[in-house]
């Protein structure tokens, strides 16, 4: 499964990079969303994939029974998802603001600092 996930992550990265290389800002935003998904998934896969072993301690026990999935990676990804949302919102509004100034969805028209 990890091999399959590796290629999935690679595919997501390729899609994200392709979109980020476009001239359109909207496509850049789509690329950003794909990129953050790809990065989270990469981290998740790297921590190891386990079916049906959530990092929970059974009621009354002190430690989980048997091997559980890596809780640290999950904690990292969880916050990364929420922060990703905040940063994406910021980027989107920034881009919208830039569009209002330049009046074109074309990054080549934003290369001057004084527009």
């Amino acid at each position, binding site marked *: 499964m*990890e*091999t*399959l*996930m*590796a*290629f*999935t*992550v*690679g*595919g997501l*990265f*390729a899609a994200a*990079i*392709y*979109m*980020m*290389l*476009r*001239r*359109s*800002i*909207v496509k850049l935003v*789509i690329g950003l*969303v*794909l990129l953050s998904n790809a990065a989270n998934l*990469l981290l*998740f*896969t*790297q921590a190891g*994939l386990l079916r*049906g072993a*959530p*990092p*929970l301690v059974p009621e009354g*026990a002190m*430690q*989980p029974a048997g091997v559980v999935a*890596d*809780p*640290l*990676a*999950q*904690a990292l990804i*969880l*916050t990364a*998802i*929420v*922060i*990703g949302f*905040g940063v994406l*919102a*910021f980027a*989107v*509004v920034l881009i*919208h*603001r830039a569009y*209002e100034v330049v009046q074109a*969805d074309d*990054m080549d028209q934003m*290369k001057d600092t004084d527009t």
Partner: protein
Amino acid sequence: MLLAVLSGFLIAAVAPWVHRGLGRHSGWALAALPAVLFIYFASFLPALREADGGRIIMEYDWIPSLGIQLTFLVDGLSLLFALLISGIGFFVVAYAGRYLEGHRDLGRFYVLILAFMASMLGLVLSSNLISLFVFWELTSITSYLLIGYNHEDAKARKSALQGLFVTVAGGLALLTGLVMMALVGGSYELHELLTSGDIFREHDWYLAILLLVLLGCFTKSAQYPFHFWLPNAMAAPTPVSAYLHSATMVKAGVYLMARLNPSLGGTEAWMLLLGLFGAVTMFVGIFLSLRSTGVKQVLAYSTVMALGTLTMLIGVGTETAMLAAMAFLLAHSLYKGALFLVAGILDHEAGCKDFLQTGGLRRALPVTTVFAGLAALSLAGVLPMFGFVAKELLFEAVLEAPALAGLFSVLAVISAVMVVAVAAIVGIRPWYGPRADTPKVPAHEAPPALLAGPVVLASLGLLFGLGAGLVDQGLIAWAAAAVYGAPVSPYLSLWHGFNLPLLLSGVSLALGLLLYLNWERFRRVTGFMEVVNRYGPEAAYEKTMAGMVWLSEWQTRVLQNGYLRYYLLTILISTVGLVMVTLLTRTDVHIDLDLSGILVHEAFIVAVLLMAALVSVTTRSRLGAVASLGVVGFCVALIYVLFSAADVGITQVLVETLTVIMLVLVLFRLPGFLGLTPMVLRVRDAIIALAVGAMMAVLKLAASTTQYADSISAYFIQESQPSGYGRNIVNVILVDFRALDTLGEIVVLALAAVGVYAMIKFRAEDRRR
């Protein structure tokens, strides 16, 4: 000792308030500090006589937990410098209080000059190479600020920058050299390194260390071809020129060469480099001095001559040469300090900045005339001044030089002739002869604050000359011993009998006076030098600076082209290249292509995920793109849930919903997709994107078979319930084990939200306007 060195910085910090409180007396009040320091350093003299090996070492804990100490080394050499710095500092600060009276930035001036004095003291007293270097750079920086003191003057700013660039570039080389020295010698402490000269001289790095250290010293001490910044530095107020650019800072390079002589000296390379550069600098300096007419220019170039002489003497390296160097150093500081202060009086009282404007001022400024004459006599090396003693020794040292004695002697004699002419220009020209029309008519003699320096310093020149033996027994001999690395037998005396040096002195005196009478003709005949100047070191400096500006403009144009995708392309292609090269050359990377154990529903989810990603890339409709993004997000969430990450899965679903809502709210107010890029470029981008994707996949596969460190998750799993009282380990990590990280993360979220809010609100306000 620590307090003594740092007191300059401490007093500097309060100097503006002292100045504001005391007004016109602030000069004298602040001069009390160097005076106290002078007495403090003088009190070391008896102790040094008793001290073991002629040196006292003082250690202070600086950062005890790291074992870093501040070490100070007091021996003849550092004490001679410390006394000069604090002694001349006293007169300069007092002088400045009067000279710059009423200048609106006088408070700042005190800050800088006191900070400079402290840096200089730190430099000559440090025993640790690193603290020595820090103080070295501090002198460069304070000097920069002092040269550019009149910062509204473009020329002053340019000169300040030039001085800074030249000395700091040398400083960089010096730092490298010092670090290499410490690596070779196994210590950063000078007092330990000084005894291990043979280790250095036989080490492979010797030449590299020598060249780097000397580059630092030569730039600081204005040796040819780096001499050009020093005359330009005369844009500084006169007290600064007197202090930094004649008596102290420029001697820092000389100090370091002298200091390191026991470690690095005594080789052929040392002798040739120092001797030749010193001799050439000496000659070029005095030649240019005689060609100048500006009061401060003449003195500045003659300082270049003195620095060259000192370098040459250290290069010669004999016992006599070291004695001559120290005597010359003392003599030069005394007369040059005095003469610069006299130059300030000329400017302050008569408004003269050029010798051609001056003449016949002796009636208006009788005291100044007498002591300017006295200092000039010492400069010329006339019996019975201390300058004479130094010059005799200089001749004797070069005549006995173990190598190149002929060349050194000829250059020394020619230079001496010109020095006499310069001395006559300074000592005779402004004072005697017909009264010239000066820009300002001096109403009265200069005030005591201005006169104190020239009077005392010039008188000391006479006093030391008459009592040469006394000075010889003490400080000069100790200083020479510290430079020489072995005790030096006292030799200084006013009268050595009729010998070759005396003859040379007499001849140079006569020829020098002759040259003075033909000064105008000399300047005319040597007019061709102007052409040479155009291609000289200063022109090279200008060209280098212009070249650097051109280079940075060029590379900014190429790299910072303003196109986001080209930045990305540069970054991506180099990353892919570097990672791939590493992966291919590292033979221990093992990639395991195991496609077994995939369940059908998982394969289905992955297929949907990749399809949706492809659609979001290729679709021409924005709604389609956003919707397929949503599908991608939900598939990812499913993967999280399937592989035991319930919390993450729920979060992903919720955030994905909110993301779609947000994109719908915003993106539809932007125009629809346009096909902006031609097909060829799209293919190129697709290839690069696929390469990055492939790299990530390979990297992931390679990484899963490699583990460098144990995971810390085991601890969290073990301790979640016992010490975190929580059964959801992910949540315990978030709010307990790694709570500080989470705090940082919610702050980021809050900032992003506030940023969005602000951007929208400000726009609304703009519109209303």
